[in-house]
Structure formats: C-alpha cells, structure tokens
C-alpha cells in the first residue's frame, strides 16, 4: 500500500507535513499521524495573515482564540516531538508582532508541560522599532510597492506596530542552534514551509513552489475541508499529497492554487529571490498525488516586506430591520432622505463639536455590500437590515452622534406627514460601541544585508526550570 510508504524522489527526498492552512483553524490527529507514518522531515504551518484586516496588527492581538491555538498545538507538539522532527510555526498571533510570538510561546510551554516534555523552543522576533524604520528610510533602504503610499510626515511614527516579513534564514539559524520548535513572528507563508528543505539543500525553485502550493493546507486539494497535505521535494521535482486517504491533490487543484490570493500567479517575490512558475508542469502520479517540475528561482538582492498599522477614528453602530412594503419599494429615496435628516440633526444638536464626523447607512438586503444603487428592475426584497455607522474622532463623540440620531433612525417616515413608524431593532441599548477604525499604512519593502539583520532570536524558558548561565546567549 502506497499510503504507508515513503516515496523517494531521487538521491535526497525531503518531506514537510502541513497540517492546516492556519494554526487555530483545526488539526486532525489521525491525519497528522498518517502523514508522519509516510516519513517526514518537519511539520510546518503559519498562524497569521493580513487578510482579516488591520486591527490585529494595530493591536497586536490574535484573531483566533487561545483555545483554538492550544487545541492545535496539543496535537502538533507531542506528535512532532515523538517523531523527532521540528515543528515550525510562522506569523504567530495573526499579526506576527512580538506580542503574538510571546502569546504563542506561553501556550506552547503550557502544552509541552501538560505532555511532560520539554522541547527546545526558539522565538523569532521581526517587529521593528520606529527608529529602525526611520533609519532605513533615511538611508534610502525603503521603497514603495504599488500602489504607492506616502510614508513621509510622521506616518511611520503613527504605526502602532511594524513587522518585517522574514524569509527562511532565521528559521535555519534557530534549527542549527538546536531548536525543536520554532515560533516565528511575521514571515512569508512560504518561508515557514520551505525553511527545512532549503536548510537541507533542496533546489530553491522546487521548495518555494511547493511551499506556495501548500501554504493554505488542504486548499490545494479536492476537498479543502478534509485536513492538511504534505509535500516531498526530490532532485528535480516535488509531489503534493493530501494527508487523508479520501482526499486528492490533482494537477488541476494543485496548479490552480497559484491563483489564490496572488496578484500574479506566475511570478512571486520572496525574501531573497523571485519564484517563476511560468514553465512548471503538473502531472498526476496517481489519483491522489500530483508531481510538479520546472519551477525556477532567481536570487535577488534581499528585501523584506513591511506591514504597519495604526488606529484612527472610532465608530458606534445601530441596526434596524424593515418589513414595511412601502419603504422597501422606495429604499433609495428613503435612505437618501433619512441620511440628510440625520446629518441635519447632528449639525443642529451637536454642531461644530461633532468635529470631522461621518454617518453611513448600509442597507443590507439591498445595497449594503456594494454601496451602489441596484440596477433598475431589481426585485424588491421582503425585508432589509439597515446598519447605521457613526464615525468620529473619539468613541464618546461617535456614541453621542448615534444617540442624537436615535429618534430619527428608529422612526423615520418615508414621507413627511405620515404616522411615525417604528422599525424593528433587536438590542437595548440600541447603540453599540464598535471601537476604533484601524488602517494599514505601509506597502513597502526594506533592503537588508541578509535575512538575519532585522531579526532577533530568543529562547523560551520553561517556568520553574533553572536557566544555566550563558545558555542560548
């Protein structure tokens, strides 16, 4: 049975198990065990992304719960330890800020102790101080990506957190120093998965391509919900295989993953080079495994992408539901009139003290997502939800604006002279303080001497364990 045999792909085969597309999304213990039985050299996955918005970086807070991370690490840490292979996690804590690394470290230590084991845990920090980035800017080492964003005039200093996306080098350094587990700050997804094969001397084109294909775990398979995948790198090809026997990685699912969340599916810039898959070919080994050849890697001057986010104004929201057919058949007129009335009321009641404020109405079921008037002939919905969003320079002012608007928002008639309606609302109090609006500020890369220049390597201490003098210095 091929499913329990390792598959040599030449003189050296290096296999990486990718248990999930994102730590905290769920890991299946049986899938991981099956992957390990196939013979692996590392378990690797990332734990972060910018995809959920700027708040997680601006606050350095995880998107997923501590329980989700603990649940997945409770499977992965003992499994990797027993198998004697390193466990690599990148972009810890969603944003990969230093606080995200430390948060994940504490969970990992807890899991290790609960299992009665003490793997050596390396910590890679890639958050950057304002001073470092200002210095790099002054030295002309920072350049903008498209679309260009301005970072002059104190923008850098306004960022709550700035992270630089690591490549494979810090991971390799930590592994060479004996790490059993590496918990990294912000890293390109591909570097997290590719560091072990690169360290072992595999062809970089194959490694970066395999890592790109498998960075979202099962997303490159026929049934993305059915667990993770593994990739094995040989002399001149790599293979992608799902962990679960019922799942398949076909040439179509594997090659089409290059489209996912990439603005260009053929050329990918990574720290230290460019992956070119223009000439790659994808072929089925059997009905579950796909083999890839022809991936190329061109070394480039080393750059790291920067991400930075800060906090801006504050929002308070309210929500109503409408079923009145008369209003539903005139939603454009209705929202236009209501918005005018709301702004007028704020100007009258609060006046200039409201500052640079904004009121936005979003009619869900009609135009809430698009923000545009639907085409003529669009069927009238049976009900809509209307979200009111007040944005102001402080939470207090946003809430004062919402409260000032409350009587109009909940009782605005379609036409003057009609009896006052009451629209449906589900909560009391009706206004919800949503918090701050955060913003991504950097779309830049920084040129560095090498992949370690802007990275600090640390080691986790087990609580209660005496630290030997000079250890890990």
């Amino acid at each position, binding site marked *: 049975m091929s499913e329990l045999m390792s598959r040599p792909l030449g003189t050296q085969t290096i296999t990486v198990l990718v248990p999930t597309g994102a730590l905290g999304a769920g890991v299946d213990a049986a899938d991981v065990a099956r992957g390990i039985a196939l013979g692996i050299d590392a378990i690797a996955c990332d734990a972060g992304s910018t995809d959920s918005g700027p708040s997680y970086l601006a606050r350095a807070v995880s998107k997923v719960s501590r329980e989700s991370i603990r649940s997945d690490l409770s499977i992965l840490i003992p499994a990797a330890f027993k198998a004697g292979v390193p466990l690599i996690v990148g972009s810890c804590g969603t944003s990969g800020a230093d606080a995200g690394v430390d948060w994940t470290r504490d969970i990992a230590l807890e899991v290790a102790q609960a299992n009665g084991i003490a793997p050596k845990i390396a910590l890679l920090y890639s958050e950057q101080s304002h001073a470092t980035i200002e210095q790099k800017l002054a030295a002309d080492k920072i350049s903008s990506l498209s679309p260009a964003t301005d970072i002059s005039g104190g923008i850098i200093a306004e960022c709550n957190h700035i992270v630089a996306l690591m490549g494979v080098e810090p991971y390799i350094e930590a592994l060479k120093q004996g790490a059993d587990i590496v918990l990294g700050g912000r890293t390109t997804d591909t570097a997290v998965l590719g560091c072990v094969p690169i360290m072992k001397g595999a062809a970089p084109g194959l490694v970066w391509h395999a890592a790109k294909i498998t960075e979202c775990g099962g997303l490159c398979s026929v049934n993305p919900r059915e667990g993770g995948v593994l990739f094995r790198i040989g002399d001149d090809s790599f293979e992608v295989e799902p962990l679960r026997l019922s799942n398949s990685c076909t040439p179509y699912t594997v090659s089409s993953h290059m489209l996912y969340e990439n603005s260009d*599916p053929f050329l990918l810039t990574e720290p230290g080079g460019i992956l070119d898959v223009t000439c790659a070919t994808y072929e089925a080994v059997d009905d579950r495994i796909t083999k890839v050849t022809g991936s190329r890697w061109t070394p480039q001057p080393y750059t790291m992408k920067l991400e930075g986010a800060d906090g801006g104004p504050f*929002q308070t929201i309210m929500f109503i539901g409408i079923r009145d057919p008369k209003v539903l058949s005139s939603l454009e007129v209705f929202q236009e009139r209501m918005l005018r009335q709301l702004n007028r009321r704020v100007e009258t009641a609060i006046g200039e003290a409201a500052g640079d404020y904004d009121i936005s109405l979003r009619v869900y079921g009609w135009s809430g997502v698009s923000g545009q008037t639907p085409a003529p002939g669009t069927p009238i919905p049976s009900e809509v939800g209307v979200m009111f969003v007040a944005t102001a320079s402080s939470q207090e002012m946003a809430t004062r604006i919402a409260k000032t608007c409350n009587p109009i928002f909940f009782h605005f008639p379609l036409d003057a002279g009609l009896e006052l309606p009451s629209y449906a609302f589900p909560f009391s109090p009706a206004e919800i303080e949503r918090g701050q*609006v955060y913003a*991504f500020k950097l779309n830049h890369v920084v040129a560095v001497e090498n992949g370690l220049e802007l990275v600090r390597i640390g080691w986790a201490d087990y609580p209660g364990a005496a630290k030997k003098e000079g250890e890990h210095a």
Partner: protein
Amino acid sequence: MPKLSDVCRHIRSKNAGPFWITVDLFFKDEQAYRAHGRDPNISPELFSTLYGANPASIKFIPVDSLNVLKISYPRSAPQGWRGERDMHGGQQFAALLDVELIEKI
C-alpha cells in the same frame, strides 16, 4: 449578448494583500476561454468604473492551462478603511456576473 456568468463556471474575488483585490474568471471550457477570454468589454475601463481602480495599474493575466483570466486591481482605499464593506474582498465578484460580452457564444 452573453453575460460573463454565461461563459464562466466560476467567478471569484479575494484580497491579494491589503492593497489589491484579485479576480479569477474560470471559463467553462477551452472553447469559452478562447472565445471570450479577450473580450474587449473585460477592460481596464470596466474595472475602473465598477471598483474605482486606476486603469493604468490593473493587471490582466491569462492562465491558458486553466482556462482562467486573472485580473488584479488596486483597491480604491486600503482594506479596513472606515467605509469598508467587504473586508476580504470576497463579494466583489458579484458586480461582474452580468457584464455583457461583445462576441457571440
């Protein structure tokens, strides 16, 4: 005139980082891809009109092996700005479904 949704089996949109959205038009088959993959109505002007993207920055990338036309455009404001309505950019594709194509099926 056929609509884009008539000649594609799947159309999707998603963030490609905080500053870009990428759209994948999966044509039904090679024939549909060859007939409509370069339709003049799938143009920088279309994406400028629908999404406020700078026409000069929009990338059109044919992926022949998959019968896919990929279009990537810069967001008119970065992901998460105060007027954000689609944090993942995952629903932006809907505006494309009814785009009418010039060539016949």
